[in-house]
């Protein structure tokens, strides 16, 4: 069986997380931002799997299933919100949706 050192596995998860973060920061479209959040979620889940493998404990995999459930719920709510936002503002640009901001500052 191919063995990859645990450091490399963690680094991979870190890169995945960073990609998600950068995507969140640079994209202005709400749908892509949601996807970026998904990527970050998955990188966190990946770390759990890696840890479970490393110490031969099932807890990490239990936690990953838990995270999957949360992610599913989050996507459902997120997409519903995005749908509402699009109905209301006719745009998905996050910078244009700033009705809470003061006009004078």
């Amino acid at each position, binding site marked *: 069986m191919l063995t990859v050192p645990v450091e490399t596995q963690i680094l991979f998860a870190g890169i995945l997380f960073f990609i998600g*973060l950068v995507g*969140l*920061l640079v994209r*202005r479209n709400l749908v892509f931002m949601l996807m970026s959040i998904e990527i970050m979620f998955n990188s966190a889940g990946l770390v759990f799997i890696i840890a479970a493998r490393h110490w031969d404990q099932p807890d990490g995999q239990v936690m990953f299933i838990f995270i999957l459930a949360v992610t599913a719920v989050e996507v459902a709510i997120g997409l519903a919100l995005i749908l509402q936002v699009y109905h209301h503002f006719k745009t998905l640009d*996050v*910078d244009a949706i*700033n009705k*809470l*901001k*003061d006009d004078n*500052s």
Partner: protein
Amino acid sequence: MNTIIAIIPALPFISFLILVLFGGKLSRRASGWIGAGSVGIAALLTIITGISLLNSVTGEKYYTIILWKWIHAANLNAEIAFRLDSLSLIFCFVITFVGFLIHIYSIGFMEKDEGFTRFFAYMNLFVCSMLILVLADNILLMYLGWEGVGLCSYLLIGFWYKEPENGTAARKAFIITRIGDTAMIIGIFILFVSFGTFNIQDIMQLAQAKWAVGSSIAVITAALLLGGALGKSAQLPLQTWLPDAMAGPSPVSALIHAATMVTAGVYLIARTNVLFSLAPAVQTVIAIIGALTLLIAGFSALAQHDLKRILAYSTISQIGYMFLALGVGAYSAAIFHFMIHAFFKALLFLAAGVIILVLNEEHDIFKMGGLRKKMPAVFWTFLIGSASLSALPLVTAGFYSKDAILWFSYSSINGSIILWMAGVMGAFLTALYSFRMIFITFFGKTNTEPSFKAGILMTAPLLILAVLSLFGGFVELPASLGSVHLFSGLVNQVLPGVVIKNIENMEWLFQLISGVIALSGIYLAYRFYYRKPAYMETFKNSRLNHFFEKGFEFDKVYDTVFVKPVVWLAETDKKDFFDQLNISIAKLALLGNRVMSLTENGKLRWYLLSFAIGIALILTLMMTQ
């Protein structure tokens, strides 16, 4: 009996606390009667205590009680202790009894005022402070009462605080009396440093034993205490606050600025008379200040056209008489005049209050006129008060008290013919301005119609005070007219009697002169202000009249000499180092605000980035540790 003297000041204080804490929940009726009732019970207790004091056969003619230790540090000891002797008794009687009548009157007078409960709370606090002042056994507690009445005076002058002028008048009264009080507290410190005690009786005994007559320390201390008395009693040169203090409601003017608080200076000098007898120079100064003040205030009263300001100048003038009496060593005459003055001046202020209220806040006497038929009860009581003020011979109490002062101002060993002449001149002015007031206000044609009739709550106190203004004088009659010495006998238990020059007793002649002077003053008022008002019209526009009306321009002089230089200095010194320091702190805060508000730009991704940077920073810190 000893415990009762502690209850007397406690009653108004308890009432004050009730009104302050639960005032909002009480009905107007309840808070009025709590305020007046507590003072009424205090008056009753004072009378009971007074009777028992007069009837006590033991040698000690005083009651004393130590309640608790107030300050106890090293050799500095001060107790909350009261002492009631005949001098305090007379003051207590006037404060509680006249105070009670004024409180009853106030229930009617303040009926429609929105600050009804607040008014009674302040009034009760005042009565309590004033009682502490006259009952205190040590000079520090007396100073507490002294400042307490000053505070209440400030609060009540500015009672209608929505008018900015009232606030200014209140501050003026507070600041000017503070000048005197500063001198007084320094005097108290000197006494403590010299004798190591605050107890008044001990101080007086030690002073007599340790200080020589005319020694510089005695003169300085007496002069400093006199400074306090001058400020509080509105005497030259600190008299300018009293006419402005008339901005307060009329019952306040009657209670604080006529009957009680302004005579605190008289009480202080009488109480510490030993110090003043050790400083003959200061005593002479007191007499001269009294004589000058009574003349200046008399002339000023002659030119006023605000009813209450006339009475205010008249009060300054009458307290001038008391100081004259104190200065020549006639303590009992001063205290006697204090009591009679409290009766008739409270009466005049209360009557003036009714007039002003009924005429819808009209203060100008030239806009009144013809009120004799419209409000007879007020007219007759006001007439009695004015007659007593102008010392109408034989029938009024004011005659007996003022005559005693005039006689002693000549016949006492400290007296002189000049002081007597000033006093007689003052008596003439008093008669003139009193009856000018009567003729202009109550006679002639009606200029303003009364809007309603004053109720029984307001007229009953007037009638009682009128009776006292007429018959209150019979407790002390001069040797030439029946020779009754009940009052001076009482006062002389604690105060030294007056020392008479070795001269022929011509008291009847002096009485005749002052009687004729008073009558001629009234006659001249009748001629000039009733029969031939045209003559006075020319005088009204003269510069002399204007000078009198402004109270000899003292305000203008003080403004140029003291106020303007200080204001100028403050203006010039606006940008010195310390101000710059404060200004730069403010500027720094403002700059911080500008920078930080840039981050609050409403851009979601900007916030996210800051989160990310923050987390990265924290993680880095954790790893490097």
